[in-house]
């Protein structure tokens, strides 16, 4: 599974992308965030403010309780600030 990080998540982690095979117990977007937070101290810092982090499954914006299903790409990022 490809994990993408954007904006300050990417800066705090130090790179833009992880490829991981999460354990079977990780079934939702929120559980995946929890799992990623445990990967390294940098990940823990990046995921500390969980309320400020949004996610997309295969490029579709989704709420945290969404099941991962067969998603191939999961992205984590702060709220959008375009325009």
């Amino acid at each position, binding site marked *: 599974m490809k994990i993408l990080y954007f904006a300050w998540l990417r800066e705090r982690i130090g790179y833009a992308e992880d490829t991981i095979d999460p354990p079977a117990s990780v079934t939702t977007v929120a559980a995946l965030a929890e799992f990623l937070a445990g990967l390294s101290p940098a990940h823990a810092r990046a995921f500390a403010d969980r309320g400020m982090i949004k996610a997309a499954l295969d490029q579709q914006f989704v709420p945290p309780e969404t099941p991962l299903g067969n998603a191939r790409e999961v992205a984590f990022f702060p709220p959008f600030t*375009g*325009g």
Partner: protein
Amino acid sequence: MPRVIVAAADFDPGAELARLEAGAGAVSGFVGIVRGESQGRTLAALTLEHYPGMTEQALAAMAGTAMTRWRLLDCLIIHRIGRLEPGARIVLAATASAHRGDALEATAFLIDWLKTDAPFWKREDFIDGHSEWVAPRDADHAARARWVLSGP
């Protein structure tokens, strides 16, 4: 056909608006520009990051919504990415219709939704070397909310 462009390159607002004129009675456009200061501090640049693929999809969906909700003949969104210095153009949202009402409202809708619903992130780079990611503003979410149809 609505067009969406995400690119580092600058655009020519006059030429882009002129391209929407054929057959229209009204063309409306909004151009966003990088300001020279933020929170009283002098800005060296804004850096715009995006999610390639998802951004284009989100903009196309927004343009499609505008085409369905208003009587539009055409619609265009150009959003720049990368490092943009004060005075640089960031975004163009433009629409063409038979009459001004549809064009003006649809343009306002597009620019309000661009702020909250497309995967772009702005970082402010100040002249003292300090950088800060822009936090979403409540006012932007309130502006977006006025286009949401109320429930049953």
